[in-house]
């Protein structure tokens, strides 16, 4: 149950956060001075916290969505399966966040 409301809350947070995406894209489209402003915000400490938090919300919402999709297909309604899917979603969201940031920074 908590996972479902977390799915919803992360959805709302992502919805509102698209303003930040639009702002950043518009800054890049507006030229170097505007971009420097945006980059200063993004690379600041609170900016980085928001970035990691947003990516975590995105990946948590994605894994929760896949959980719901498995249920839509008719699988995974047994109590044991429900339990481990919930745990896998939480663990996976943290793991994926770390992985994505690692790939972004170290690999690419």
């Amino acid at each position, binding site marked *: 149950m908590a996972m479902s409301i977390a799915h919803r809350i992360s*959805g709302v947070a992502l919805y509102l956060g698209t303003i930040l995406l639009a702002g950043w894209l518009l800054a890049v489209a507006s030229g*170097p001075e505007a971009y420097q402003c945006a980059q200063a915000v993004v690379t600041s400490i609170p900016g980085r916290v928001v970035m990691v938090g947003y990516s975590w919300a*995105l*990946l948590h919402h*994605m894994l929760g969505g896949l959980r719901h999709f498995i249920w839509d297909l008719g699988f995974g309604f047994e109590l044991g399966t429900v339990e481990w899917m919930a745990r896998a979603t939480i663990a996976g969201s943290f793991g994926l966040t770390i992985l994505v940031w690692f790939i972004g*920074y170290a690999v690419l």
Partner: protein
Amino acid sequence: MQCFEQETGVTESKIKAGKTGTRHFLVQRVTALVNVPLVLFLLCTLIANLDKDYAGVQAYLARPLVAILMLVFILSGFWHMKIGMGEIIEDYVYGRATKKLAGLLNLLFPLIVGAACIFAVVKISLGL
């Protein structure tokens, strides 16, 4: 679900059955699946480009693959989020007028923010 006007003597609003429920359900799942690879690819590449200077970021976003995937993601993602927020409004917002207002805002917000994103991506990739 209809309210009986004769019995109460007051004209109640008739709450109609939604006609688009199945379509929303399917579109939500399809956009969700499309979003999975898009989000993973875009997150990784975006993070890789966050610390670059203006020229580097502009070059990244102007690449045809990135620009096209960005546009697909904007369309799919914003449609998905509009339907999702619509369900939240259906669940938690009461009152005829408030619900309609919320629905209108839910139409305008993804539309405007999405249009801004699309404009930015096109402008960057065309080098304008």
